[in-house]
């Protein structure tokens, strides 16, 4: 990483073309000054991966390569811009599937070199958090953020733009991953999150006793693999006993257990740090039951809740364009040696 000048004020608006390819969505967007979405193009591969019951990394990488130019072209044309009119190119450089990340990173480097534009590598989770800057123009640091998605579960304090203090992460499965695995076990299929969310409406969320895991010695860390195993054990024992499994009850009880853990950790952290603002982010933040639980909990505690609309919760490039703006302002520039970093930690420089 090179350091460019730290820029304290802007005379003109800055437009960033952002690329995201860390998992199974090929996405591009143009974002102005980190806050205004000029375009948002997402090409989902979900139909293809559904055939395999989950994301197949090699197939995801192949599809990204096929689609990325059309997605980027559309992001520019939807914004009414040509490439020379944007001020920088941003790309997700981690964490994520390494092969998938490499497509976006390589493509963005070609774009930046060919167009003579600065290049900014962006952390995917930072992006998710920054989706809130686009959705809520009034939101400014400091605040607490909870990112919940298929690949990540992270609770962090956002102390300033681009400055993070990680409070808790998952020690095993991400919350969304647990949704997928449980959905598969009860025959709902992939992707698990939306399916469990929908079917839970017909179920009783206290019908099956399930654990709310704590991680020893780490107040805010998460663990979802025990919960997933408890569901699988329950299914197994019911089948052995010849009892009928009520899909909706299992889904509702599991979902309630996940939501309970997420809310209790987040509210404990908010209370401890005297923070009054909470921002949700990530694909699982679209879950209606999770949103309802946070809305209720925040209302009771006098906490202001921020949550982007579902289109900015799922993987997208708008969030990358927003995060890149604040990184750029701090002087971050990347060279042609920018790599993909599959296990990049939030706040870690590359």
């Amino acid at each position, binding site marked *: 990483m090179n350091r460019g000048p730290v820029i304290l004020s802007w005379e003109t608006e800055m437009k960033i073309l952002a690329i995201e390819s860390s998992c199974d969505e090929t996405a591009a967007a143009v974002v102005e000054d980190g806050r205004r979405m000029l375009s948002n193009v997402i090409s989902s591969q979900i139909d293809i991966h559904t055939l395999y019951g989950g994301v197949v990394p*090699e*197939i995801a990488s192949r599809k990204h*390569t096929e689609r990325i*130019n059309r997605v980027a072209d559309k992001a520019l044309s939807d914004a009414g811009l040509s*490439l020379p009119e944007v001020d920088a190119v941003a790309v997700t450089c981690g964490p994520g599937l*390494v092969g998938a990340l490499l*497509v976006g990173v390589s493509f963005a480097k070609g774009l930046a070199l*060919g167009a003579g534009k600065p290049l900014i590598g962006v952390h995917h989770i930072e992006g998710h958090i920054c989706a809130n800057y686009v959705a809520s123009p009034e939101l400014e640091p400091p605040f607490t953020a909870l990112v919940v998605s298929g690949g990540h579960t992270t609770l962090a304090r956002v102390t300033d733009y681009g400055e993070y203090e990680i409070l808790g992460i998952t020690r095993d499965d991400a919350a969304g991953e647990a949704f997928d695995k449980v959905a598969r076990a009860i025959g709902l299929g992939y992707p698990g999150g939306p399916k469990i969310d929908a079917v839970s409406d017909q179920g009783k969320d206290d019908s099956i006793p399930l654990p709310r895991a704590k991680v020893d010695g780490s107040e805010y860390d998460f663990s979802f693999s025990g919960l997933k195993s408890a569901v699988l054990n329950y299914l197994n024992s019911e089948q052995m006993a010849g009892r009928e499994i009520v899909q909706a009850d299992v889904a509702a009880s599991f979902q309630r257990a996940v939501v309970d853990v997420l809310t209790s950790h987040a509210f404990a952290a908010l209370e401890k740090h005297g923070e009054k603002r909470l921002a949700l982010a990530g694909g699982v933040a679209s879950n209606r039951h999770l949103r309802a639980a946070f809305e209720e909990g925040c209302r009771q505690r006098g906490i202001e809740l921020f949550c982007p609309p579902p289109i900015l919760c799922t993987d997208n490039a708008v969030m990358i364009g927003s995060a890149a703006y604040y990184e750029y302002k701090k002087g971050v520039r990347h060279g*042609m*040696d920018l790599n993909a970093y599959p296990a990049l930690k939030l706040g870690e420089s590359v």
Partner: protein
Amino acid sequence: MNIIALDSSSGVAGAAIYSEGRIIGEYSLNHKMNHSRTLMCELEELAGRLSFELNTADAVAVARGPGSFTGLRIGVAAAKGLAMAIGRPMVMVPTLEGMACRYQGDSRLIVPMLDARRDQIYSGIYRFRGKESECLYDAEALSVTSQIERLNGLGGEAVLMGDGCDAFAREIEEQLKIPYMVAPVHMRYQSAAAVAVWAAEHFEPVPAEDAAPEYIRPSQAERVKNGG
């Protein structure tokens, strides 16, 4: 005609710039598989040293495969970004034909072999008549023994190229009956300059948005799903 060429299909990460019938610069690294860190630095360095304006290129050529899946994508995705930025088409160069191009004018059988893992090679068999190449067997994934049997059947003399010669040196020595030479190290592996030359001679431009690697092999998941 000006052509920017990239090849990151296996061990070599190479960039070259072809201008008006000459290779005006080539950069080639064959050290570690960290093409994502090196490939575009090579091109940036070359263009800078040569004061070559990237947007004066008529096309961006890239080794399209076969080769390492990830390696191919690093090169092809970078080329797609570059081509979009300069508003020029791409030329998708078959990896093995690009390699064979180094032996243009040689009348022997030219046999590039890339280590394809899973006890296979990506290989084809080519023969030149002057500058014109004839493809006797097109690129495919097969066992080294199968390719050696073909060569034994064809007769004549052969030049073997690629990292498959290193990976399967013993099989080649034991089984190949026709006279052959393993290309010397400075001629054995992929070269972006050869990619540029192939592209200049077979100028078949494709729009950057349609360009994709030619993997030859489906992904593991597809193989399993289809019972392969």
